[in-house]
């Protein structure tokens, strides 16, 4: 455990010093929330529409860091030989993954905190109605998104391809998961896909816990679906993870 915490500390340093990475995965959701807030504040639907979008963007922020940033970082670090160098130390492969997920979890919690502060202070939205439930949703959301990030990283052929491939998954996921608008307005097939994916359930949990009320399928079911995605993500990641770039053809350590 000591090695994991030690490594997570350096993973934090690495994340915050990569300014372009910080901008696209941490700052961008905040900017988006402010811009959407300013735009929607004057439109039809007023406060309700603003609350809907703000809670969606908070869930999106979790995916941005825990899924997108993690998958890109793992692919880049693998290409650069960093994963192999670290795995060859007494830090076990599982320890390295745990350190990365822990670091991403810390950044994600910070991201959510910043988004809530912006929502309250800048956009004038009320404080979360059910803070423990919001926290639980975010923690479970981090787990599922990080597991999927690691799973996707197994399929990314190179660091260069990582931003494009993760965006190709992340952006459609955002649009069909109910972040910006209710998904029941989407065509049936797309709605079915969106409902099956984890971000939709995270959005439901975050929205219900923040605004008060109960999510559509109930707390337990949404959490269970996220946990199921976490297990699936871990299974794919463990089964196909590579510590070396594909051209080096290394087997799992």
């Amino acid at each position, binding site marked *: 455990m000591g090695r994991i915490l030690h490594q997570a500390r350096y993973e934090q*340093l690495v994340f915050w010093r990569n300014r372009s990475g910080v901008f696209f995965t941490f700052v961008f959701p905040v900017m988006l929330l402010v811009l959407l807030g300013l735009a929607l504040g004057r439109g039809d639907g007023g406060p309700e529409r603003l609350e809907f979008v703000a809670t969606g963007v908070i869930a999106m922020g979790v995916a941005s860091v825990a899924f997108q940033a993690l998958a890109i970082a793992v692919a880049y670090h693998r290409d650069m030989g960093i994963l*192999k160098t670290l795995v060859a130390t007494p830090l076990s492969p599982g320890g390295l993954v745990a350190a990365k997920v822990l670091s991403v979890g810390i950044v994600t919690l910070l991201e959510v905190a910043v988004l809530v502060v912006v929502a309250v202070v800048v956009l004038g939205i009320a404080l979360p109605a059910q803070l423990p439930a919001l926290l639980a949703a975010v923690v479970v959301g981090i787990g599922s998104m990080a597991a999927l990030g690691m799973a996707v990283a197994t399929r990314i052929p190179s660091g260069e391809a990582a931003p494009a491939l993760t965006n190709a998954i992340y952006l459609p996921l955002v649009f069909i998961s109910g972040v910006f608008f209710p998904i029941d307005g989407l065509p049936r097939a797309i709605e079915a896909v969106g409902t099956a994916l984890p971000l939709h359930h995270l959005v439901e949990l975050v929205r219900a816990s923040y605004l008060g009320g109960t999510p559509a399928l109930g707390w337990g079911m949404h959490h269970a679906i996220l946990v199921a995605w976490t297990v699936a993500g871990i299974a794919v990641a463990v089964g196909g993870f590579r510590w070396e770039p594909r051209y080096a053809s290394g087997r799992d350590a």
Partner: protein
Amino acid sequence: MDDAQHPTEAAPDPLLAVEGLAASRGSVRAVRDVSLTVEAGQVHALLGPNGAGKTTTLDVVLGFCAADAGTVRVLGHDPATATGRRAIRREIGMVPQEGGHYPYLSVRETLEMHRGLRDRPRPLGEMLELAGLAHRAGRRVRSLSGGERRRLDLAVALAGYPRLLVLDEPTTGFDPAAREAMWEVIRGLAADGRGVLLTTHYLEEAQQLSGSVTVVAAGATVASGSSDGIARRLGLRSRIVLELPPDAPRLPPDLGPDVEADLEVAGDGHRLEALAADPAPLLAVLAAWSRSVGHPLDGLEVRPPSLEDSYRVLTATKDGER
């Protein structure tokens, strides 16, 4: 030492023992039959052309690649098992062919990070001194030169007093001075009782550092032992050249029946060139001649077969088979 025999076979408990290793990269059989041992205090060079299976062999040793056949014991552990890998990685240092470090961390932070992962970390100052990076401690990794990054690789490998070091082309990209400095570090580690397995394309480096070498080609060991022993087994001969000044007495055209060498006396009896498996008889005859005519052998040069000579023969033969 009997050079016909592998020089490390007789020693008990080698740090690394690879026997009959076969391993694949995807669907390609990269290693077919590689054997080698590394003992404490020994630098062992693993040589071979690109694609010969060197890095795959190292990856099996480090537990990054599974063996298809053969046995591998690293510090008494099996790298194919999770328990074995855990034990090995506590006591091994690795310089991979393409080492990787976080570009946004400084040299000091990188070394501190690796020190924190070790059971018994080496003091930071010692790591910086060993790698010659004390003056770069505050620099970000991304701003280091290629040679400096390679030195950082070495410093990281030394973070935990490893009993066995696996160095995959550690001096690639070094200038001659940096290379010699690295050699000194490697010699020092061996003198301190560490075992070193080294791959390199610089045959002079292998000859300078290694008491024993294994040459692989097309995935299989083609020779193993000391540099001199390999040359003898291949029948490679020493080259003897004697250049006499014009005013010196002439060499006789026939130096006698005891000399077993391909020998040519030219230049009006003032130049001798010979190839001999054992140069001693010829040198004895030349010394006797020198005494009898009262002229020194100032222009005498004896060049034993180099590791490079052996390597060329071994790898050319193997390439021809492919």
